[in-house]
């Protein structure tokens, strides 16, 4: 009897202690904004209208459809993901206003957004001050990732440093290039690209002849002539779409027949590029960088396109959808789900941040794995290359990456 009483007393005390601990934990969770026993509120922002809508409208749709899939499978530790979506128009002012509204008015648990780097970098100070985790959608956002902070994770498409480095890696390995003509922009993007390129060029013992031009350049004759005069093994173009098309066109006009390699930043629409360079003749020896695991719509990533069709049948029926960058939304959403799962049934923002820092997984969507670390906030550094002749796309074998590391 005594034993039974003692056992009962012990069991009672243990139960009380457990209940007390559970209540304490529940109250701690309850203090976390955007978190209820049945839901996690995520604040999403992307360009849903305006001239830059193509950069993020369907990227946000892809992330949403992945969250819907997780909800259908039971959610995360019993909680359903609830998305509050705002339009940032890829404009810094609109984006910061959207972020403030999501944090202060909607009281979201974490932020998932940003498709345009310059705009998303503008939110850095507020996000860090508010201590809200921000997991970018598809912006590279290097300006907000380096030097690293505890709260911002991005470059699920690719870091700008890695764009440049991977270009050199490809030229050296695919063509055995020892001297490369390299043209970039004279802005922050160009500087980041070039820093990555230099790191890889040094390792691979490749000489770079560099010309940096304004994004608004109209006449590319001078920089092209100087690059051609360096007698390169290949021409690397790491610019935006318009200067890239002007350079490819100029190369064709001047009879340049070495390989021309274009960065992922240089085109969003290959058929428009073909028209802009004056036709297929200019693309006889042309290669373009991509960050997906396969050709757009290829077998490795077909499931993403199938999921999109099933989730948005009306949109998928339109000629311009899914937009080119649509699959980029998946690894971002996957990362959030994995970090929330790892944070356990009573997540806090700080726990999720710690789990984000440990992420290392292959999304199956992008060319390389999502890898974060104690000092690393850029998810992807790998790229593939496609030979494009104006009509057909052929995947080049291999994955190419940058050796650049943040040394801050």
């Amino acid at each position, binding site marked *: 009897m005594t034993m039974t009483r003692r056992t009962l007393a012990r069991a009672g005390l243990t139960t009380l202690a457990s209940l007390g601990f559970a209540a304490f934990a529940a109250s701690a969770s309850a203090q976390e904004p955007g978190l209820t026993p049945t839901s996690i509120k995520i604040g999403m922002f992307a360009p849903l209208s305006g001239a830059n809508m193509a950069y993020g409208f369907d990227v946000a749709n892809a992330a949403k459809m992945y969250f819907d899939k997780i909800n259908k499978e039971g959610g995360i530790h019993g909680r359903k993901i609830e998305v509050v979506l705002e339009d940032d128009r890829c404009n810094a002012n609109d984006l910061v206003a959207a972020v403030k509204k999501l944090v202060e008015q909607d009281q979201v648990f974490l932020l998932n957004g940003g498709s345009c780097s310059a705009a998303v970098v503008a939110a850095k100070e507020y996000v860090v001050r508010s201590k809200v985790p921000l997991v970018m959608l598809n912006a590279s956002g290097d300006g907000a990732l380096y030097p690293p902070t505890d709260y911002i994770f991005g470059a699920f498409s690719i870091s700008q440093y890695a764009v440049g480095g991977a270009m050199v890696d490809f030229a050296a390995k695919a063509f055995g290039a020892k001297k490369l003509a390299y043209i970039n922009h004279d802005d922050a993007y160009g500087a980041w690209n070039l820093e990555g390129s230099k790191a890889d060029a040094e390792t691979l013992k490749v000489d770079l002849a560099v010309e*940096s031009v304004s994004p608004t350049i109209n006449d590319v*004759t001078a920089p092209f002539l100087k690059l051609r005069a360096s007698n390169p093994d290949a021409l690397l173009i790491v610019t935006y779409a318009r200067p890239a098309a002007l350079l490819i066109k100029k190369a064709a006009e001047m009879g340049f027949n070495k390989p021309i390699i274009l960065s992922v930043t240089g085109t969003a629409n290959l058929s428009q590029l073909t028209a802009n360079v004056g036709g297929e003749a200019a693309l006889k020896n042309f290669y373009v960088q991509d960050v997906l695991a396969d050709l757009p719509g290829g077998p490795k990533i077909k499931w993403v396109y199938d999921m999109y069709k099933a989730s948005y049948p009306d949109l998928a029926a339109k000629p311009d959808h899914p937009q080119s960058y649509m699959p980029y939304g998946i690894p971002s959403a996957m990362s959030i789900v994995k970090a929330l799962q790892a944070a356990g049934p009573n997540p806090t923002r700080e726990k999720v941040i710690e789990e984000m820092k440990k992420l290392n997984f292959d999304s199956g969507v992008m060319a390389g794995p999502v890898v974060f670390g104690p000092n690393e906030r850029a998810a992807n550094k790998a790229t593939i290359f496609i030979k494009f002749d104006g009509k057909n796309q052929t995947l080049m074998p291999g994955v190419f990456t940058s050796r650049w590391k943040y040394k801050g």
Partner: protein
Amino acid sequence: MDFDLFLLFLQQGIVSGLVVGSVYALLALSIVMIFKTSEVPNFAAGEVFMAAGYCALFLLVFQHMPLWVAIPVTLVASFIVAALFRRGVLKQVAKASGSPVNLVIATLGLSYVLKGLVRRTGFGDTPRSFPALISTDSIMIGQASITKLDLSIFITAILVMAAVFWMFAYTKVGRAMRAVGMNPKAAQLMGVDLERIHMLVWGLAAVISAIAALLISPKILMTAEMGSIVTMAFAAAIVGGFMSLPGAVVGGFVIGITENFVGLFISSRAIVVAPFVAIMLVLILRPQGLFGGKFAIKKV
């Protein structure tokens, strides 16, 4: 740099500079024409140029109109829009305040309206190619390589400039425009209809800008921001002397060649800075511009 490369760069810089400079010269001509008659720097010149390019693109590519319809329609539309802007907006602004600052602000307003309209159509969202009306096959001039399209741009620009000078020198309306530029009150007393001349000048300047757009668009790719090329035209006008039509033409060629030489012999990064350095040098060394004549104090 070895001597052969130096010679190649020199020849290519001059040839490419003349081609692009001829377009700057046309735009500078349109700016100076307006400034000479109404003393308003037209800050909408770049957007008029851009909108005319998109108008032609829309008619040719999206409406599949033949060339002989699309180009005249573009030129007439440019003329009408600019003339009506002069009549409907600038005249009212001048009547309301008479301040030149307000007139300048009105031209800035037009630039925003035109850019907004083009963006609204969605055609300006991505760089677009204007169909080249002439072959882009290369030809050699000495060691310099240019395309047949480049050559046709240069020749057409020269012909248009010659036509403008002929009109100013030998036609009644041209002489009336010059008279309004020299002394509007005296011209009015001699029976010149000031408002009609102002409308004609604005319309004609827009037509010249539209021709510049039709010439250069196949080379530079079209975006809603392409009007920024007008910065070069202002540089050309300042270098030439803001009141001189021949100065605008020479200024255009000077800026075109300077841009290329700076890119080839100094640095590609410095290309965008070159026109402003040229402006500053001219303002310091010869403030009236190359063809501006000596400063004179105007007695009122």
